[in-house]
């Protein structure tokens, strides 16, 4: 434990990193997932196999990549394969243990939207779209999602279902024939949500230090289920904070140099 000062984003990244098991094959998106995955690799999970959708398998970047095409990924990878190959042989082939995604919106069955805010044909905000997210959500053995917790993100109804979690809840995911188990953890800057074993509805199961249940309920756009026995997330240790901050500083320095 540590009494060091930290931000809510650091808490989120560190908690997400802790949930990565050493040795897992991990399909990871750029941004928050990439930061957490690399933090895990630099701390308790050195044998994690990082896979980016550009086809880099076993990437070991020393700084966070700018994009999936970053030479830092291909130069440090065990293997670099083409895009058709990474999606067909590796992801669809069922070889990936954990997928790690961000999102703009999430609903109570952990379906996510990264496509549009508003109507698809006349969007208020056009977001980048699926990329590989939809297949990552479908075909990894298990999925983890990380995003900031607020009413705009945690919505009653998605504007667009980009990537499926548990669809309508219950056994609807299995009925659609998707092989992966689906999202097992949603890590936010306020706490951790996990799906109910039967209904698959996201339930608040852990609170980050200093956060109240009322705060999380207020930041969620549907009546949030709260676990009877609520865990407390451990605060970031000074070791975790120092590795994360070093990584971020190293990254900022490296990228500033590329002018």
């Amino acid at each position: 434990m540590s009494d060091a000062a930290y931000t809510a984003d650091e808490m989120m990244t560190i908690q997400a990193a802790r949930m990565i098991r050493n040795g897992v094959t991990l399909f990871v998106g750029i941004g928050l997932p990439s930061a957490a995955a690399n933090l895990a690799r630099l701390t308790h999970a050195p044998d994690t196999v990082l896979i980016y959708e550009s086809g880099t398998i076993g990437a070991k970047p020393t700084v966070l990549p700018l994009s999936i095409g970053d030479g830092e990924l291909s130069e440090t990878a065990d293997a670099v394969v083409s895009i058709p190959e990474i999606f067909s042989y590796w992801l669809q082939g069922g070889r990936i243990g954990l997928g790690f995604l961000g999102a703009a919106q999430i609903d109570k069955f952990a379906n996510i939207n990264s496509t549009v805010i508003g109507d698809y044909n006349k969007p208020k905000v056009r977001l980048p779209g699926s990329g590989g997210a939809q297949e990552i959500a479908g075909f990894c053995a298990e999925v983890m999602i990380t995003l900031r917790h607020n009413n705009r993100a945690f919505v009653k109804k998605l504007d667009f279902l980009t990537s499926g979690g548990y669809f309508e809840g219950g056994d609807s995911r299995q009925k659609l024939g998707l092989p992966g188990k689906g999202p097992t953890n949603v890590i936010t800057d306020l706490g951790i949500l996990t799906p109910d074993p039967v209904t698959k509805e996201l339930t608040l199961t852990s609170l980050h230090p200093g956060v109240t249940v009322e705060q999380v309920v207020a930041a969620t756009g549907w009546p949030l289920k709260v676990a009877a026995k609520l865990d407390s997330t451990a605060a970031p240790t000074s070791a975790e904070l120092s590795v994360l901050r070093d990584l971020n500083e190293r990254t900022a320095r490296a990228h500033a140099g590329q002018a």
Partner: protein
Amino acid sequence: MTPDLIYDQLIGAGCVKKIIFSWGGNPGVGSLHRLRDAVENGWPHPIEIEEHAHAGMAAAYSAGAANLPFGLLRGYIGTDLVKYNQRIKFINCPFTGVKLAAIPAHRPDVTIIHAQKADRKGNVLMWGVVGVQKEAVLAAKRAIVTVEEIVDDLNAPPNSVVLPSWVLSAVCEVKGGAFPSYAQGYYQRDNAFYKAWDVVARDRETFKAWIDRHVLGTKDFAEFKRSIASFNNEGATSHV
């Protein structure tokens, strides 16, 4: 698949009628603002979009390269893309009955890619993150490759990605041709430019001034690169 800044420039300049894509952002920075302005507000004119996920695009290029009518994959099931893209259909496997997604093959009129090296006969070698470049070339009616350098001997190890000259229409030596993106073994991404582009593309007038000065106002790629060097030194907005 992933329209980068060059697509944003083409869209903002009014050169694009339709875009087929699976991820449209400024990688690691944020939005492609010209793409957003076209989709959200129809500026400079409305564009048609045909949207996929990466695996669907990859399957469609592979099908094009293989002269198959459609690409086949598990995927898209239960998602909203299927409601808006009529070119995503489902079929049942004739052997097992399993439901699979089918996407018409991509057959571009022209594919343009950038690679590292060509030899004097026009055989092209590329390595690193090769993406769907090989499939996009073989799926196209014509393909143009720009390379960092033309050499006497490719020295390509077996199993390297080599595109033989006879599947290509033209090979051109354009040093720095991946700008502002990466060319592995030659240069890193110009990250300052990606960040500056966010500022330039956010505003229609700033964008127009940029494209007039650096693209329409220069006669070739070499002059464009010199013009851009001064842009980078001045910072994102000081020229408008």
